[in-house]
């Protein structure tokens, strides 16, 4: 095994935030271009799961001429099996706030929002205190930036950035057509940077230690570290910061219970990797290493041999059928068809070949659904059905 595959624990995100004032002040004193270049050279990619280069996102939004712009922190952490953002916001909220303000400096915006998942209502009081402390300091140093919390109402789809904007605008949470992208047409139709909580926390690290330190972690295409929410059949569930590029083999060595049958990488919208492919699977964004490489929002669910993969899939599809916004045909009708389809096969009402028709359906969803939700249903469906076909039938 090449060394890049090794599992390396790091500790940046949850390292104390006591220097935030200094980091804020120093960053605000640097020109926008320099900060953007720093981010670009760090090769930080969005940690919500889609992996868009953060520096480029800031750059595109900074280039917009518009007078009003927004910085939004996406804290609608709804992917099943993910619970890292909650932890960041309770342990190191000032890192996130600092990065939002620096982003405001870079793109020339004085307004930030945190879109907080409905179920995280309990985080509000403490978070508000941090925001107050933060805003007080901004006033002290004469930097005009304020931050508001916007409470979500519990819809998974509102984690999709354009549905999130719609929700904030008081409309039904449904994805918009892209283009235009948020960098030109975001919240209230204004250029908007929307970053995941963890992404913002990483930019703090980069502003604190420089791009090089971050870049040196991880592997090509997948630089830096990442938080993983580890759950399922593991003796040590929890949140871990690990270098990107590790192999799933090493991951399971560390976190498995000795009987790991499969790992769901990236939550319900991610992929299920069966044991036989642990060795060839690396966790990162793109670019083939020696095997397959998976992007991830950081959800790692381990399943041991006591778990029925049919039940796992049934559970995911139930979730998607509920959470589809109901706008586009492939997702609205497709999710329900998939769920009913695997039930029919399980009950023997349809023969096993029906699974192939359902796979064809997921392919259509992947290519034609309007947003990432519908497009990604294919991920778990095909990886489970293809690897555990017999469990679907018998």
């Amino acid at each position, binding site marked *: 095994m090449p060394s890049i595959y090794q599992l390396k624990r790091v500790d940046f995100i949850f390292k104390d935030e006591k220097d935030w004032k200094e980091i804020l002040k120093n960053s605000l004193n640097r020109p926008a271009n320099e900060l953007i270049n720093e981010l670009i050279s760090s090769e930080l990619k969005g940690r919500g799961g889609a992996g868009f280069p953060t520096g480029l996102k800031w750059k595109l939004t900074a280039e917009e001429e518009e007078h009003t712009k927004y910085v939004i922190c996406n804290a609608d952490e709804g992917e099943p099996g993910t619970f890292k953002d909650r932890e960041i916001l309770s342990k190191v909220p000032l890192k996130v706030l600092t990065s939002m303000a620096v982003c405001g400096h870079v793109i020339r915006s004085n307004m930030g929002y945190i879109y907080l998942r409905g179920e995280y209502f309990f985080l509000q009081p403490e978070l508000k205190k941090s925001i107050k402390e933060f805003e007080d300091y901004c006033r002290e140093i004469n930097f005009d930036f304020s931050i508001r919390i916007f409470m979500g109402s519990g*819809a998974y*789809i509102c984690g999709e950035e354009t549905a999130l904007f719609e929700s904030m605008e008081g409309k*039904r949470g449904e994805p918009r*057509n892209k*283009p235009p992208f948020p960098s030109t047409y975001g919240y209230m139709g204004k250029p908007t940077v929307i970053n995941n909580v963890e992404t913002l926390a990483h930019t703090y690290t980069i502003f604190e230690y420089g791009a090089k330190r971050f870049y040196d972690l991880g592997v090509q295409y997948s630089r830096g570290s990442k938080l993983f929410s580890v759950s399922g059949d593991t003796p040590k569930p929890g949140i871990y910061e690990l270098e990107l590029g590790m192999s799933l083999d090493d991951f399971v060595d560390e976190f498995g219970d000795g009987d790991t049958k499969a790992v769901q990488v990236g939550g319900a919208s991610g992929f299920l990797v069966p044991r036989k492919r642990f060795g060839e699977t690396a966790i990162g964004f793109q670019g083939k290493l020696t095997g397959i490489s998976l992007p991830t929002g950081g959800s790692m669910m381990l399943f041991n041999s006591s778990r029925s993969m049919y039940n796992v899939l049934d559970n995911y599809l139930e979730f*998607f*059928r*509920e*959470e*589809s*916004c*109901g*706008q*586009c*045909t*492939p997702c*609205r*009708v*497709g*999710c*329900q*068809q998939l*769920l*009913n*389809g695997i039930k029919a096969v399980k009950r023997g009402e349809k023969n096993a070949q029906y699974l192939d*028709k359902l796979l*064809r*359906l997921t*392919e*259509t969803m*992947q*290519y*034609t*659904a*309007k947003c990432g939700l519908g*497009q990604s249903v294919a991920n778990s469906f095909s990886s489970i059905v293809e690897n555990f076909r017999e469990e679907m039938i018998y």
Partner: protein
Amino acid sequence: MINLTINNKKLQVEEGTSIFEAAKQNNILIPHFCYMENVHQIGSCRICVVEVEGGKTLMASCVTPATEGMVVHTNSERVRDVRKVIFELMLSDHPKECLSCWRNQNCELQELGNLIQLHEFRYEGAKSKDVIDGSSPSIVRDSSKCILCRRCVTVCNEIQGVGLMNPHHRGFSTFIGPSEDELLGESVCTNCGQCVLVCPVGALKEKDSTAAVWEALYDKSKTVIVQTAPAVRAALGEIFLYEPGTLVTGKMAAALHQLGFNYVFDTNFAADLTIMEEGSEFLERVKNAFTAPDKKPVLPMITSCSPGWIKFMEHRYPDQLAHLSSCKSPHMMLGALTKSYFAEKMNIDPAKMFVVSVMPCTAKKFEITRPEMFNQNGLADVDAVITTRELGRMIKDAGIDFRSLEEGEFDSPLGLSTGAADIFGTTGGVMEAALRTVYELVTGRELPGVRLHIQPLTGLNRIKTASLKIENPLPEYSFLNGVTVRVAVTSGLKGAAELLEEIKNGTSPYHFIEIMGCPGGCISGGGQPRPVNDAIRTLRLKAIYREDEGKMVRKSHENEDVMLLYTDFLGAPLGHKSHELLHTVYTQRSKN
């Protein structure tokens, strides 16, 4: 200009053009479904997806702008493959009862099926709940047939500003309608029927009244009288495959006679009458404004011919109802006269009369149920309203070969009309007709303007305004000398709300406003043949003006039969009899 390639064809289109439009401009047809040009482009059905080289997924061509160097395939293996699957998904949640559906052979889903050619059904998942809401006198909603294209949502919200039709719930449970327990008949629905007009399938339809009409026609004891609105003759032909904008007035009258109606009257007669009443009412208000302000005349006065608009006003601006003219809409006037004047004249028991109005409108179905529209003896002014589409169905059902009919004529005495009445069918028409009469009454001279038209008030713009300076009026109107009369015209309820906000804020500069509930006016009312788009609106509109210009008499006050009606029966405009038969009152309604 943008250069792109579609299906190996190099094209040039203007910047901002969607892939769909770019293809269309170059005669490449992309199958599509929810798309409506310039109205509804949200990319929800996904039928129009195409392959763009370099893209991870396929793109909905209706919402994806063409960009420089783009290479598009609209017909690749993948595209055709997924299109079939999407269509199949749509059908999997649609009852396949085509033969008993009202939209059979006039259904966009069937048309799409013709293109896509699907011969097997692979996916048999769940079906949406079939809730049929028949509570409204105008519109029936059948959610089992809804394929969630959301055109009705766009029209109800963006065009009409009523905001009633919306998606509710999530995922497969999503349904379109008023909120969960709300019935259309008990809602703020204005019954305008614009949603019905754009529904591609049978999910939204007019409430059928043809059964009641057939029943009356077969009842030997009934005298069955029919009247037709101005806009019907400019669109009915489309049902019989005439080009849009073909006038079929004569054939229509002939068909109605053949269907067995005892008398065929023209609502246009009552349109002329409306001008006499409404024009007089306007002059009275204006006169009071200048000479007797203590009577607190309310200006601007707003027209009241469009029942969809009236209900919108009653819900949204219940405090402003005094701005509405008290005139009933023309067909209600004609109904009331039929059961009084005409009944008397012909010695027919009004209780044995059955009056049918053929209207371009679904809201008229609601209008006849209003308590004000029944006379002192409890008889309805009008007994049934059928839409242009329903008349088309009746003609077909009766086996009448419409295209080969000889030209027929309306019956007297409630059949004669002027060109002023014809233009009631289009936005701006009522205002122009009123001004032709009012201006002449005030000045003794003909309305200035090319061929009696007020150019700024014609066409399809949302809000149209004009002003007219009064000079050298007749002595009795001397107080108007030098006064500039300002008028505004709007069609579609969003424009109506804009003008009403001005009135509410006290900033409205107008004296007289014409409001029609449907964009374009009655020519594209909720009961007209589908499809309706701006091109078809324009053709129908031109037909209406052609009808006007072809008439010998083009001013309402020169309609001899109307004048005869006044001397014979009504007395004078705004007289006692008029008030009893031709005027009405309005109801304050709740805002939600």
